[in-house]
Structure formats: C-alpha cells, structure tokens
C-alpha cells in the first residue's frame, strides 16, 4: 500500500506560522485556541476529496493565507444604515457600539470578554461544527466580536444591526466571532451586513452563534456584499430550545468565492426553524451554501428554501443535510433547492442529503436546476415585454420568494435593491 505524506500548501504553512506567532498575543482562551488549531491541523485545509468540501476546494482556492488584519485607526465609511442600533465591526475588530441599547439587551465586546473570562464564554462553540476547518480556524484566531444577551421574556422591538466592514488595499484576513444569547420567551431581530473593498483578495472568516432559550423568537437576516475578489468563509450556529421559532435568511451577492455554513441543532422539543438563502452570481463567482440540520429532539419542524441564479461562468453549490435522530419522532423537515442557470458555462451542484433514524417522521427534499422557462418568457414577451425585462421579471420572482421571508422591512429593501442592481448590470452587458 502506498503511504501518502500530505504536502503542506503555502497557505497551510502561513497559517501555522501565524498561529505560532500570534497565539500568545490573541486575547484569552489560550487552551481553546490551541485545541481548535490542533483539530484544524489534523487534516489541514479541506480539499475536494473531503466530502463536505467536495465542491469548494478551499485548499486550491486559498493560494496563501493573508495576515490577520490590525484594528483600523479610523472608522471606515459606507456601512448601510438600517435605522437600527448598529455595532460596527471593522476588519474583525469592534470599532463602535450603539450609544444606548434597547431595554433588556446587554452587549460586551468579545475581546473584553475573552480577556476577563466572561461567564457567557462557556456557551461558545458548537459540537455539531467540531472539526470544521472554517470554524476551528475562527476559534483559533478570533480577534474580537460581540457577546449579545437578551434577557428572558423581553421583546426587543428595534432590530440590532451587526455591520461588518472590511477595508484595506492589500490582502488581509479577519476572524470575528459573535455570540447571541436569547433568553427564554424573548424575541429579537438580528441583521448582519458584510462589505469590503473591490479588487482585494481579502479573507474574512466570521462566525455567529445564536443560542435561543425555550420559547424564544429570533429573526436573522444576512447580506453578503463583500468585495469581488474576496474569499469569504462564514459560519452560523443555531441552537434551538424547546418551542423556539427562528428564521434565518442569507443573501449572497459579493465575493469571488464564498462559503456560508449553517449548523442548526434542534436541542428542545417542538422547535421551528426556517433557514433560507438566495444567491445571484455572475462572472466566475463561486458561492457555496452548506447546512446541517440536526433534529435531536421530537416534534421539530424545519423548512429550508434556497434559490440560486447563476450567470456567465459562475458556479453555485447547495449542500443540505437533514439528520433526524432516533429520538426525534414526529419531525417534519422540508428542504428545497432551486437553481436557474443563465450562462452556457454556468454550473450548479446540488447535494440534498437525508439521514433518518426515526420511523415516524415526514421528511422531504427537492432539488431542481435548469434554464428559465421558455413558455413563461414567451407569455411575457407576447404581452409586449422586451426579452431582458421579461427575464428580469422572472428572476425577480424566483429569488423574491426568499426575500419575502425576511421580516425586517429595511433589510428587505436592501436585498431588493441589490437584486435590482444585479439585474440592471446583467441587462447592461
């Protein structure tokens, strides 16, 4: 039998060097960081032979690992105003927090929390994501972020905005981490926006963890408006208590390569979650949405709806895995991924997986991909719409279904605006 000695890529070597250099200067959690880096280093950067990364070869994409960004001296401009209290996180460092927070909400920067050993840190880390390279690297390098706590029973009427802004002219890496603890029966809306410079191959790796107590309600929406050369990793961990209700929507427009991973655990009975996503891709963009939904307790209901539009030579990836444990009887899971391919060389990779160990459940998944429906186009054109407009209308309707699941109006408008400008740019080409 041939013995294979893995060769380290320049990126893997840089990561090791960076960790050895920084591990004593990064704030707190030294043991956790070392353990996380060791778990990452066991397998190195994931490549196409690693099943979960089959369609997104991170090792090939990451030519070199850029240095971790310093805290910017000035406050970068350009973060969208969603009319909500806003935390500004620039290059992975918290630059500003709202002057006042809604009643029942407290926030502390992760840097302070790590240095002081904040009690909420015990909730950091998701067993479902253990061994995942993006997550382990975030844990090893996390620079700063926010720990948000919503007290039990509090309904927060104002949404909270986490604005991630990246700035720089040379490639850099970021590692921000956010933990949101939502108390039992509390209700909160979280908005995340991500943006950065065009033409710079920067490498953000963020992780957001939401721990929802029994009966909590959480609405979460995220916009990926990163720069066109960025290589973006993002992870979202959702841990749902009994009878919680959660929606999360991710809109992908930016980045050269992006991978958004969702790890959702139904830790209490009868929790409900809908996890949705849309992506509009052109040029040679590559966008990967990967989710693992783990129904550990009975009576859970999960809904996943993903819509991907792929133009030019871009590629879309959807990997969704629903796990139903033996105990999780009466689970109802439905997952749907739809893709429209517009360019001759566009590609879509779908992998909707089911792993079921309980016998009294209803689980379904569907995946479709194809071109725009000729009949629908013909119908619209017969009614006097020029072809580009007819196409735009159909595309808008296609991804609009996901936008509609965003409860916050300001965020919905931002997403709709991005969709319109994407369609305009397409028509102009």
């Amino acid at each position: 039998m041939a013995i294979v000695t893995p060769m380290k890529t320049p990126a893997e070597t840089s990561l090791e060097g960076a960790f050895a250099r920084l591990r004593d200067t990064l704030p707190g959690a030294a043991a956790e960081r070392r353990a996380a880096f060791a778990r990452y280093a066991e397998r190195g950067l994931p490549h196409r032979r690693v099943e979960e990364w089959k369609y997104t070869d991170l090792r090939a994409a990451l030519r070199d690992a850029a240095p971790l960004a310093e805290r910017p001296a000035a406050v970068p401009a350009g973060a969208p105003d969603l009319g909500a209290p806003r935390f500004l996180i620039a290059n992975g460092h918290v630059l500003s927090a709202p002057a006042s927070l809604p009643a029942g909400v407290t926030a502390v920067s992760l840097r302070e929390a790590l240095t002081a050993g904040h009690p909420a840190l015990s909730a950091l880390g998701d067993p479902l994501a253990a061994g995942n390279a993006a997550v382990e690297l975030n844990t090893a390098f996390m620079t700063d972020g926010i720990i948000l706590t919503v007290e039990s029973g509090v309904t927060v009427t104002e949404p909270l905005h986490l604005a991630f802004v990246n700035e720089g002219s040379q490639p850099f890496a970021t590692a921000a981490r956010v933990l949101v603890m939502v108390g039992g029966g509390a209700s909160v809306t979280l908005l995340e926006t991500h943006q950065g410079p065009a033409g710079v191959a920067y490498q953000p790796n963020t992780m957001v963890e939401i721990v929802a107590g029994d009966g909590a309600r959480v609405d979460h929406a995220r916009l990926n408006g990163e720069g066109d050369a960025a290589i973006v990793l993002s992870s979202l961990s959702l841990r749902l208590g009994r009878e919680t209700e959660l929606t999360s929507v991710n809109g992908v427009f930016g980045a050269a390569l992006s991978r958004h991973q969702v790890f959702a655990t139904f830790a209490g009975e009868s929790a409900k979650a809908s996890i949705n996503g849309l992506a509009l891709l052109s040029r040679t963009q590559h966008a990967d949405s990967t989710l693992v939904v783990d129904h550990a307790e009975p009576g859970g209901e999960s809904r996943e709806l993903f819509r991907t539009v792929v133009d030019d030579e871009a590629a879309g990836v959807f990997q969704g895995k629903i796990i139903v444990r033996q105990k999780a009887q009466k689970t109802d899971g439905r997952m749907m991924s739809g893709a429209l391919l517009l360019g001759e060389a566009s590609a879509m990779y779908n992998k909707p997986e089911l792993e079921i160990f309980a016998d009294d459940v209803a689980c379904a998944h569907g995946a479709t991909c194809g071109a725009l429906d000729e009949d629908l186009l013909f119908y619209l054109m017969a009614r006097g719409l020029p072809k580009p407009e007819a196409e735009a209308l159909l595309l808008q309707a296609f991804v609009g279904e996901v936008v509609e699941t965003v409860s916050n109006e300001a965020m919905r408008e931002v997403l709709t605006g991005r969709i319109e400008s994407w369609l305009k740019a397409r028509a102009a080409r």
Partner: protein
Amino acid sequence: MPAVQETIDQVRAIDVSEYKYGFETLIESDKAPKGLNEDTVRFISAKKGDPEWMTEWRLDAFRRWQTMREPTWARVDYPPIDFQDAYYYAAPKSSAAPKSLDEIDPAILETYKKLGIPLREQEILAGVAPENRVAVDAVFDSVSVATTFKDELKKAGVIFCSISEAIREHPDLVRKYLGTVVPVTDNFYATLNSAVFTDGSFVYIPEGVRCPMELSTYFRINEKNTGQFERTLIIADKGSYVSYLEGCTAPMRDENQLHAAVVELIALDDAEIKYSTVQNWYPGDAEGRGGIYNFVTKRGDCRGRNAKISWTQVETGSAITWKYPSCILRGDGSRGEFYSIAVSNGMQQVDSGTKMIHLGKNTTSRIISKGISAGRSQNTYRGLVSAHRKATNARNFTNCDSLLIGDKCGAHTVPYIESKTSTAVFEHEATTSKISEDQMFYCLQRGLSEEEATALIVNGFVKDVLQQLPMEFAVEAQKLISISLEGSVG
C-alpha cells in the same frame, strides 16, 4: 406517519431468518491455493485456458490492485477484509467441460432444481409457453456449469456463453470491448475482479437482431471461504434488443464471503439493453453473523445514438451491498433508466444507487428508487446525476423514497446533482407527498378516504416500477410487489 401493518408483515416475511436458499450442496471441488498473489492469478488464468494476452491483462490488474486502497466513503461498516484468507477459485470437480446435462454432477442439477432454475430445455419447453422461454447460464462458484438454448440462439446470430468460453472462441469481440466501460483501474474491487475473475456471461447481439428470448445468468456461491468474482459483458450492436436477467443466492454460513462482480453493458446506435437483477445473496443471520459482502461495479455505456440502457433491481440479500449500476449517456439522444427496490432487514447494510452521466446532446434519464429498512439495518441511496457542458438539453427526473419500519434502523439519501449546462433540466425529489392533486381529488371524490387514496396511488406507482421486471422474475419479486410505501419518508 408510521408504516402500515400490511407492509410490516410483508417485510417480515422476507426477514433474514426466513432465508430459503441457505442450503449447501455437498460436492467435491477443485480449489486454488488459499490467498492471493501472482501465482493465484496465473493459476486461475491457466484453469480458464486464457490466451497469453488475457493472462497479462489479469497480471497488470493485479499489480495495479496492490497499489490501491479499499474505498471507505460508503455508509457501511465492516471489519477489515483479509484478502489472503480466502480462496479465489473453486470449481466442482466433476465439471471438467461437460458436453451435455447428463455429464453434470446430479448434485448440481439438484441444486438448481431446488432453486427453481430450469436447466433442461425440454422441461422448459414442455411447461411454459414458447414466448416465455429463458436461456440460462448457470454459474456455480467459479465456473459456468451449463448454458441452455445455445443452438437456438446461434441461429439468430446471438452469442450467449460463459465469458471464459468467449475469451477462447471470440477473442476479437472480447478484446474490443472488455474493460472499455469499467476500466481495469476503475476502483479497488473492479481492479481485483479484473485480476481474478473466473466466470460470468458474455452476450453479443448482432446488428438489427431482437434477441428471441430472455437471457439469464444464475449465480450460486456454494463453496466455503471462497469469493465469487464474475464478469459479465453484454454488447448490443446497432438496432438490436436484449433483455437479461440475473439472480443470485448462497448458503447460510457464519463467516462472510466476498462477491465482487463487474458488469459491462455496451449499447450501440438504436440498441436497447434491459438488465434486471433479483439479488438474494445470503444476508447473514439476525445478529449480523455471516452473509455476503456484495461489492459490485455495474455500468452501461450508451455508446451510440438513441441507445437505451435500463437497470432494474430488487435487492433483498447480502450483509453489505455496495452497488451503483450506472449509465454513461454518450450517444446523442440516448436514454438511461434505473428502477430499484432495496429492502434491508436484520443487520444488513445497503449503500446503493446509480449514476447518470449525461455527455451527449438530448440525453434523458430517469431514476426511481425505493428503500425500505427494517430491523437494525441501514439503507442508503447514493446517486449522481451530472451533465457535461456539451450535454445540451439533458433531462433527468429522480424520485427516491424511503420507508423505515421500527426505530432501530436508518434510511439515508445522498444525491449529487451536478449541472454544467444551462439547457439541462434536472429534477430531484424525495417525498411521497408529491402525489398529484388531481389524482387525489379524483379518488376522494369517489368516496375513498385520504389514506386509502394515498395507498392506492402509491401502490400503483410501485407496481409501475416492478412491472419493469421481466415476467420470469415476477415470482421472486411477488412478495415485494404489494408492499405499500405508505408512511414513506424522503
């Protein structure tokens, strides 16, 4: 919703403890020395009377195999296999080239009789209407003991014989096609098979011929501690048609036995091959002792325009199944079909599915897969549908449903859907709730309850799949036919 009682009873009727083909034929056999090395390969080659090129082909494969690793990606779990602790060749001693049935050991004839496989042509003619005749190639451990209706098939120009005979008698055809669909280097088990394959069937249907009868091979593992490595090669020349059936059983034993087959199908312009399997290898006992490890590579190549290959399988046996009958849709307008029902009981582990690889223009494929798991078994559907950039207007429809009976088993679905052309339309669904509202409305309107209506529609649908099986296998599949998939999960 949970499975209905009727389904539970039917699955129980074919539970591992009910295995009916577990008897052993006591017969002396001629075996290769235990273990696997170049000498074993040469021994097999000599026994088969291989020409020089074939021996070299085997040795190349063997050398290649030594550098390969066992695949571990499938969702199956078993202790490491000691490839040196098995016999790679076993043949009934008396079988040295029997010229007629009278020369075959009566014990073997008795075995096939017990299995319900007709080897005497006159008996078949006497009992069954001529249109239902089946030509049989009976493979006992490592050798083909009999092939029926050879003469009549010859008149139609059809070649149907054991692969070792084909290597000797039709070397040009074999050299032209062998290993062109499943290359020697394809995967661990296919490479092993290429080195040590012993027997199997060879079919050649000449241009424009519709094969006058169904062809079938019946595989029987009898000897202890032996692996069976059969190789089947079917070539349908332009405009021809053939329907081929395969059945397999083995005695009950406490140790595991390896079965690593390779099946290659080649369909040229406008040809059609229909390949049906009822796989009923010994599944092991309720505690998971014994049973066959079934690691099979089956692949069809629609090499010509408008060629069609259809796989139908009913899988109830084997301790471990690792099997993905696939279609390469190379010719423009070609079509691939895969119909499967996999039932797992006891401690069985099934990881099965298909690959539809669309390369040509206007190619279409259809996948219907039903998995039923009971006991402590694990049943996985794993399938790939891919469209190459040049496969314009490729179409696929996939439907895979699974049903669990009891809370100690698992059902899993792992589909890969890869489209690299915007004109391809792929649809994948895994649900039973996809019954059309029209059908449902119609049934409800006529006074059926929703449950009855669902059962009726779903049953009708399953029967559709089973009707893909040729008549001859209907009896074996009978028990499965009426299995209701009510309560299916995705």
